[in-house]
């Protein structure tokens, strides 16, 4: 290959990468709508808040699962860590939400950095077990250290100060919803920036073929450790938001169901696509709300059925109805 065409090639690659990272026209519109939603749908502000938190949590899992291909059944570990860190910080140190949130992010990032060594080796099964084990250990810890965490009763009496010194958290949840959405937006933009960077491209290379990624000189272990740590921080932010906006942290933030749910909703929305987590969170939360008002006790059955059908049909195909009648579809 001669020199000029090499330059040409580089230019094309740079251009296509740049195009990929450029904001599409609908994206700002979407986010403006989201930001307006607590005001437009004022009576549903509580569920909007929940959706924003779950969406952020799903984005965090997407960084690990969708972009890097680490199957994790214990992502609630970081979520819960963030929740307890934020709640304890508010209770024991100071009630300012923003500082508390930064503290929660810092703590869970630290935890993620520690845990990142556990996911580097072994097969999918090993990683499943180790991530699940970490979440279970934290669950037990939160349960047993009842002088600190309130044990099975949960951590009560968390009083948050007003946001930025001005906006108090109200019962209707409008402040909480706005707060959660803004935090989610900031972290989303950062995550978007990260996944569209060269770093993000190496992550996807690792996901697609770890051996080849290693062969072209990508430092696989350090990349895995770094993304796992970052994702832990994002999950911690989601957990912290939950604790701050509900003024409560209980054991269920570490529960297995939470890890399973977030995985499920990410898969519903589509992995390896940051909006997948958001779409999944919206669908999942609304579905949960609707079904659990019909059958509060047995809604896990319908979730289970949905999962089984989704997996049998193939998650690529169910979300794209136009491929149903094509023979030998993409799945």
């Amino acid at each position: 290959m001669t020199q000029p065409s090499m330059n040409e090639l580089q230019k094309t690659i740079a251009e296509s990468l740049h195009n990929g990272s450029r904001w599409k026209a609908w994206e700002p519109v979407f986010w403006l709508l989201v930001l307006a939603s607590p005001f437009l749908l004022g009576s549903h502000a509580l569920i909007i808040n929940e959706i924003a938190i779950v969406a952020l949590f799903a984005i965090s899992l997407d960084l690990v699962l969708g972009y890097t291909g680490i199957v994790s059944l214990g992502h609630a570990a970081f979520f819960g860590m963030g929740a307890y860190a934020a709640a304890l910080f508010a209770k024991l140190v100071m009630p300012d939400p923003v500082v508390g949130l930064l503290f929660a992010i810092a703590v869970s990032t630290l935890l993620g950095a520690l845990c990142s060594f556990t996911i580097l080796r072994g097969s999918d099964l090993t990683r499943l077990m180790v991530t699940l084990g970490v979440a279970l250990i934290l669950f037990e810890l939160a349960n047993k250290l009842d002088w600190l965490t309130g044990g099975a009763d949960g951590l009560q009496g968390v009083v948050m100060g007003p946001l930025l010194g001005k906006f108090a958290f109200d019962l209707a949840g409008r402040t909480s919803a706005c707060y959660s959405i803004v935090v989610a937006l900031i972290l989303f933009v950062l995550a978007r920036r990260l996944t569209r960077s060269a770093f993000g491209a190496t992550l996807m290379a690792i996901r697609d073929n770890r051996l080849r990624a290693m062969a072209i000189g990508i430092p696989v272990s350090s990349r895995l450790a770094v993304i796992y740590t970052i994702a832990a921080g994002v999950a911690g932010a989601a957990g912290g938001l939950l604790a701050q906006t509900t003024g409560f942290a209980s054991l269920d933030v570490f529960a297995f169901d939470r890890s399973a749910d977030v995985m499920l909703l990410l898969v519903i929305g589509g992995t390896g696509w940051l909006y997948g987590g958001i779409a999944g969170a919206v669908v999942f939360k609304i579905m949960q709300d609707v079904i659990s008002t019909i059958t509060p006790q047995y809604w896990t059955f319908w979730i289970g059925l949905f999962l089984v059908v989704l997996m049998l049909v193939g998650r690529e195909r169910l979300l794209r109805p136009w491929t149903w009648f094509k023979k030998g579809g993409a799945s």
Partner: protein
Amino acid sequence: MLTILFDGIAYGMLLFILAVGLAVTMGLMNFINLAHGAFAMVGGYITVLLMQKLDVPFLVCLPLAFLGSALVGGVLERTLYRPMYKKPHLDQVLFSIGLTFMAVASTDYFIGSTQQIMQLPEWLKGRTELGEGAWMLGMGHYRLFIIAVCAALTIALQFVLAKTRFGSRLRASVDDQRVAAGLGINVNVVFLSTFAVGSGLAGLGGALGAEVLGLDPTFPLKFMIYFLIVVAVGGTSSITGPLLAALLLGVADVAGKYYIPKTGGFIVYGLMIAILIWKPQGLFVRKGGK
């Protein structure tokens, strides 16, 4: 102290019977089946309900539990599991979580969420004590019975795997599916029967363990982690691996809960993570297998 060791061994044997099916199917199909506990629950409920409602003797219930869950396992393998073998692990995990959720919710719906109590027959209720002082060995008859049954099953399984034609076919399929199929082994039938037997064993384990482990609709979720630990630590390529892992887990769990009850599950989970970081493929890996 010996009593704890004894209880731990009984617990470990029980875990082994519960998890051995999972180990074999995971090694064979490379399928991560989180719904394995649901089959154990089927067996447990068959036993409890038959004993409560129809007064069937305990010893008759055990084979029925085995057959019942084997049947369920076989049917599900043929209809639902088979299309999933080729899918990525993430899909399998979600699929089997979905099955587990369904099993838990429907048991709750049909039978109720209360813990089932099993009435043991009189001859299993007693307790024998040997020795004196610190070295006293107290053996509950039921635990003795569990150890005896599980040991017999283990020996039988080992015999089938090592000496019979089916065993060699199974081992060949585990080592390399495609070559095994090329040699004229009907791998599908091997899969089906193995899955059914594995589910049956889980059902039997569930029936035996209903009294020890407790039986309620959340059983599959509660013990899923234990089965997976046995398999992940023991490796999937032999049956001695899971056996030793199950015994280790059983003894560690019972001893931990007895001596330092404050720690709860820490010991087990911590031990598992330590072992998996040290040897990611499990403690007992056979060389040469795939």
